[in-house]
């Protein structure tokens, strides 16, 4: 028997790692993957709560999250390709034309 809190801590850690990746990584693709990691962490807590409260809707939310993640990945990767085409790099530190 695993306490609910374990799952929550795990998901929290995954989310934190996602944030860290977002902050630390330079490569746009990796940053996107960090976002996916965050989403996964959230999904875990969703499922855990669903199991805990005996409410399937938690699992349904996971599906929605997956759909959103898929859309985000599609568009995001397209953007990445466009950026790479125009700027010739994937390093976010060099994609800073908006800087003053």
């Amino acid at each position, binding site marked *: 028997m695993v306490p609910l809190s*374990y799952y929550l801590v*795990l998901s929290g850690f995954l989310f934190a790692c996602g944030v860290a990746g977002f902050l630390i990584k330079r490569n746009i693709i990796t940053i996107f993957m960090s976002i996916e990691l965050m989403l996964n962490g959230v999904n875990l807590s969703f499922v855990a709560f669903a199991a805990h409260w005996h409410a399937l809707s938690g*699992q*349904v939310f996971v599906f929605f999250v997956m759909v959103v993640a898929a859309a985000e990945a599609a568009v995001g990767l397209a953007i990445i390709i466009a950026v790479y085409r125009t700027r010739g790099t994937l390093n976010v530190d060099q994609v800073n034309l908006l800087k003053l």
Partner: protein
Amino acid sequence: MSFHLILFLAFGAVCVGGAVNLLAQRHPINSALSLIAVMAALAGEYLLLGAEFVAAVQVIVYAGAIMVLFVFVIMLLNAAEEEETRGSRVAFLLGVPGVLTGSVLTAWVVLRHSGTEAVAIGALPGHPTDIAQLLFHDFLLPFEVTSVLILIAIMGAVVLASKPESTARKVD
């Protein structure tokens, strides 16, 4: 130390390791693979939580489709290892401790405020039919909305990724 807990810890270890590896690795493809590992392990966790369907979909959609896209793009753009920059170092010095403290704090709070109620294997039989009931009756509208969303995403991706010169060729 029940069988269940052992499995949980095993999968959890894979998750944590994958997540940390995602951060540690310099090459995006390794990060991608470690992320895939994380997702697979998460699917395992879902199975432990009795959500077989979610687990399967997790594998199919995330590991099987989304991450394939990532890997595909990485290969397409032939992404190289990321190089150190001043910003990155700053971010590292600030980000890692911050995230660590944040997660530790959260964990502490969660553990401190959580009762001992446990989740048993298959406590909730996430049978596909039940989920279908929810998805197509109770959550019909959100479902349709997401479908529209994904349609828009497809179009956006097509437009964004289409080569400018190809359009130019169309013009002349």
